[in-house]
């Protein structure tokens, strides 16, 4: 597979992954552009990897983590907090429309998470990786992954000990 073929085929998925990580389309585009440029520069090595896709996703993850270190953590968090304040906190009958609204609310809450916690959630729920795989990607212990996930879910008020997830938003007004 040439780099051009790979990039053309995988770009939409990489962009979705980066948006899930960053929560910001523009930033995601920048992260993916930087990541693909790195992949292109080392394409022979990437191509020889067992899974070029996984290799590039690792670059995207590293890029996200390092970018978030370099800049504007507070901006993204502030934006998220603002969205949380503005969100419609309906507590009435639940239906799919409400689920959409809650999705926006949750998306805003995700923006308030520390980068590693958000990365853990994206890798566990969006990428559907197990904690061992996540630990390998983040270069930490599986226990750290579980700890980060637990903290993140607590912040998002999505702890599984709260039996009825739909009551989450009603209790945080």
């Amino acid at each position: 597979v040439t780099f051009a073929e790979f990039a053309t085929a995988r770009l939409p998925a990489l962009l979705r992954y980066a948006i899930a990580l960053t929560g910001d389309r523009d930033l995601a585009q920048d992260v993916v552009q930087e990541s693909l440029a790195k992949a292109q520069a080392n394409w022979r090595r990437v191509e020889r990897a067992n899974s070029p896709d996984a290799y590039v996703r690792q670059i995207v993850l590293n890029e996200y983590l390092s970018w978030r270190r370099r800049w504007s953590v507070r901006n993204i968090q502030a934006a998220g907090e603002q969205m949380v304040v503005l969100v419609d906190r309906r507590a009435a009958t639940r239906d799919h429309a409400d689920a959409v609204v809650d999705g926006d609310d949750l998306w805003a809450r995700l923006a308030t998470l520390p980068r590693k916690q958000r990365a853990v959630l994206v890798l566990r729920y969006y990428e559907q990786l197990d904690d061992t795989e996540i630990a390998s990607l983040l270069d930490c212990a599986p226990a750290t992954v579980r700890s980060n996930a637990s903290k993140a879910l607590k912040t998002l008020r999505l702890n599984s000990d709260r039996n009825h997830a739909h009551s989450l938003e009603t209790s945080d007004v």
Partner: protein
Amino acid sequence: MYEEREILLDTFDAHTDPNVDTADVLARVDAISRSRRRNRWVVQVTGVSLATVSLIAGGMALPSWLSDGAPGGQAATVNAASGGSGDHTQAQERSAFFDAGYNYADAQKLAAIWHETNITRVKAEAGQKLLDGETLPVQPSGDAIAPADKDVEAFFNAGYDYNDAVTLAGIWHTTDSYQAKIKGGKKIENDESLPIPPSGPTGSSSSSSASSTKISKLATKKMLIIKKAEAKQGGASGATSGTTDGLSPALAAYFNAGYDYTNAQQLASAWHETNLEQVKAQAGQKLLDGESLPVQPSGQPAPPTDSAVNTFFADGYDYNDAVKLASIWNVSTYHAKVEGGKKLQTGETLPIQP
């Protein structure tokens, strides 16, 4: 029960539609790569010849330090194509920023100078200034869009798509479809005709107006790819008509089954075929027809659910459609995406249009 896993998955899926022109992103990737390969002095030497090429349609010019042939000039400018401040969308401003050779590091420098912490706002502000013909206080780290990128852009603007590039690569015996896009784009720019007609309508060549139509163009491209794939498939297998991430069904089947470039080389050898694009398409078609291939895939097959969800989105459906389908089928949104994708993969229609 609405589990936390599904709540999060739905939330991610609902908010991760890229809505960008992939050709545009790929052009920028190439620009970043090139700018890193070159030393600045090389850029300065080639700047004059680059500047003579009308790289950016819609009146946008190269950075002044390039177009003036005066290395060390202070800033980049872009001629105002139409109107002044406030006439440009954020996408246009962003495009102007990147197309002029600026990157994220430059935005950081500008942010420091302007005492602005929001980098996205900095890029938009800088892009607006460039579009208004103003100069920026820092030089771009990279160089502006190069001829190859414009060739690719011309290729897509003429209505050609990835599948056309694959076909042309076969006709011209180029090394890959990217080279076919460049060659095709050059011919289009020289008013030469290509051996095949474009799959889609001619696009706008104005980058200043292109941004506003990017979303619809992207949607159109996807639909055209799907329609063309369906036309090619028609009657052959009669089964699958979906696409995955813009690939034809045959190629999607090939890659989703875990086959890669090396396997294509092995198959080419076994089948005494030299065109690897054709080998992959032929192999994918065999897989779609339920046949086995003489070599084992190097990789792991894509999980069926991923493939189904990808197909769901690739066919133009979005989160809100999944919500509607979930309501109709009385399943969770995630399962609606999976079920919908599976139906699309087997050529069935869904109860709602994307």
